[in-house]
């Protein structure tokens, strides 16, 4: 047999470039950031950026599964807002009843994650069993979740009682071994996500369904069940993200989580996963999420351009990064 011909080798290089595209972009941005402001590379700033990436990053990990599955979820921002609101209501009720803020918070956390799983279950059933396009289902629930939050908050905000808020705040603000709690959680979610995607049958089926649903069906994969589980997984991620969000801002209002769906999807796609599904990586998604935060961090650190044009700079950078890792036609 003759040696492996070139094309596969060049394909390898390409694949490498593709998966390193976002990383390269990130490195480049970091160089620019440091050049513009030497404090950019300071530990404090790096931790700040990573901590704030945690919400969107955790949601993006779940979104990565849904997109690889060939689906989409537009509702995550509203879902987070509603979970935050419901969680605050529950904790405010439980706090005085139980007398112990810590157990109220623990119950609240459990409640948030379960609620996320249930919302995901609903999506999954409507999509897999109801046979409705994911875009429509989640566009619908986007409105529904936010409306119910508005309703519960009477148009205003739901705010966590201050004793609970104090007891809860270390979940966002404390550090372990010098690294803030949300970063640990983000890391854990990303690791578990990567493991589930690449090393479990479930993850394999998600990729198979996204790549070719018919083939998966022919291979006797229980397509419906996997779809439901995938949307539940995203729901759980949203629940976890909310658990980190609430101690930070301590309240939920009708504007909470607005446009998070776009950010989460963008993190996944900037991270090199194709919107049409079939393949993608958790690592890429994490890098994508960090990259997006870094862009706005750099914009915050400098004032070289008009504030009106921040969004434009973000737009240009996103397109440029995507260009670096573009696929061959």
């Amino acid at each position, binding site marked *: 047999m003759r040696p492996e011909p070139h094309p596969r080798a060049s394909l390898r290089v390409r694949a490498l470039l593709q998966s390193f595209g976002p990383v390269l972009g990130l490195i480049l941005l970091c160089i620019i950031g440091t050049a513009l402001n030497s404090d950019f590379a300071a530990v404090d700033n790096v931790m700040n950026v990573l901590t704030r990436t945690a919400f969107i990053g955790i949601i993006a990990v779940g979104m990565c599964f849904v997109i690889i599955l060939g689906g989409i979820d537009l509702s995550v921002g509203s879902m987070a807002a509603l979970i935050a609101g419901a969680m605050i209501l529950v904790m405010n009720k439980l706090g005085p009843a139980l007398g112990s803020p810590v157990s109220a918070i623990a119950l609240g956390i459990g409640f948030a994650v379960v609620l996320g799983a249930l919302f995901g279950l609903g999506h999954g059933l409507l999509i897999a069993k109801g046979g409705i396009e994911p875009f429509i289902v989640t566009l619908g629930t986007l409105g529904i979740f936010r409306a119910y939050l508005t309703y519960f908050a009477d148009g205003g905000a739901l705010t966590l009682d201050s004793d609970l808020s104090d007891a809860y705040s270390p979940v966002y603000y404390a550090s372990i071994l010098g690294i803030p709690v949300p970063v640990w959680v983000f890391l854990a979610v990303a690791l578990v996500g990567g493991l589930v995607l690449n090393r479990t049958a479930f993850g394999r089926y998600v990729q*198979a369904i996204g790549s070719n649903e018919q083939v998966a069906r*022919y291979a006797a994969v229980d397509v419906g069940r996997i779809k439901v589980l995938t949307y539940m997984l995203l729901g759980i991620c949203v629940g976890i993200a909310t658990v980190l969000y609430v101690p930070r801002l301590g309240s939920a209002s009708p504007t909470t989580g607005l446009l998070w769906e776009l950010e989460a999807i963008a993190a996944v796609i900037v991270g090199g996963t194709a919107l049409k599904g079939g393949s993608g990586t958790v690592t890429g998604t994490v890098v994508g999420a960090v990259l997006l935060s870094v862009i706005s961090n750099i914009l915050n650190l400098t004032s070289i351009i008009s504030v009106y044009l921040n969004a434009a700079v973000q737009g240009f950078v996103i397109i440029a990064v995507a260009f670096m890792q573009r696929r061959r036609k």
Partner: protein
Amino acid sequence: MSLAIEFRDVVKAFGPVQVLHGVSFALQPGRVTGLLGENGAGKSTLMKILSGYEQATAGQVLVNGRAARFKGSREAEGEGIVLIHQEFNLAEDLTIAQNIFLGHEKKRGWLLDDAAMNREAADVLEQVGLRVRPETPVRQLIVAEKQLVEIAKALARKARLLIMDEPTATLTPGETERLFALIAQLKAAGVTLLYISHKLDEVERITDEVVVMRDGRYVTRSETREVTRHQMANLMVGRETSDLYPPKAPVPSSVAPRLRVQGLTVPGWAEGVSFEVRPGEILGFAGLVGAGRTELFEGLLGLRPRTVERLELDGRAMRWRNPRDAAHAGLTYLSEDRKGKGLHVHFGLRENLTLMALSRYATPWLKPEAERQALEEAVKRFGIRTGTLDNPASALSGGNQQKLALAKVLHPDPKVVVLDEPTRGVDVGAKRDIYFLIEALAREGRAVIVISSELMELIGLCHRVAVMRGGRLQATLEADQLTEGELIAHATGTH
């Protein structure tokens, strides 16, 4: 170990169209049975019912005497019944090993045991003779390799009844030989085999008996050694068949070449290939898998990066860079990958047929009536069998899809046409029709290039045959030099 299968009055209808009209016959355990029938006779449909991918509308399948009604392929596999599909069923984004074990993953606790799966995949790949790493994504494979992966996938299932639906349609003689050796091994191990093929020489060689279907009905069965190939063909079509190949019309040697290609290089695939073809000439391309024939022509069309020293059509220099330019210049190409590159399976027959010649129907508004009329003519001319003209292409049988694909690339009325495996999965009757059609195209003054893995086809049809090996043009054989031995010798480099 072996399974005994019996069909009893199996009926299948798709919507208003009934395709199986009460099929009854039995398969004897431990033997290799060939299933013969024209395109659209219902072979694939019957096999899908047997292996749980489709459900019969009425009737029964008995497995070892017990009625079985599989709700899905998994249940059939539970009984040891495995089907290698005529059309590929591979998830392109997954690797070879991941596809082979899809739905049957090996695990260590919660986690997948990829090392073990890759190891086992490597074993079955070795058995089918595919030397590609099991971690290679299927997207990167060529058609023949995908076919081998399909076979490897079935092997990994440890079947007791293995059904092969056109497994060699895209294989070259080398892989085919290896497959036959494998079949012999399986048979020796007691596996019952069902073999569907339109290559009657293969059927003759490896089957113990043949079952013939026609128009969704069982016709007859016979011990293979008691029938000749010619008789098989007659049984399939239900009438006397005549010569497979048309007589070769002489090509005047004085005419200028229609297409001249000089120094065509497709990086990584083909190196400095030059050839020419005259009007009225049929030029064949032979080679083994990996010879680079498909990629050479994809490069010629501009579908892959390539460089070319000189390109001439009717003496004029050309510089087309994509299939559209090429089509405007008068060259079209039929891909060997029907499902992935040849047809829009979700489109109607009409939309598929006219896609490459739409400007003819757009003046400026498309005329569905005219398109439909063209479809009716094509259905007649190419013998496409379809329940209704409104079907999507996916509802055609494999062979009929091939005829539609052929009709499509000929529809623009090209001056030069490149046909990559033009008779893939086509029944003998239709094959003959296609050969005569190709001959007619040449006689009309067109230049025809045929890439084929069936050496007999090249020998029977072509005026000259170019042989490629390892991306280089090895030799160009004139009609009087064309023998199987000669072709194989050049293709394998043992000349």
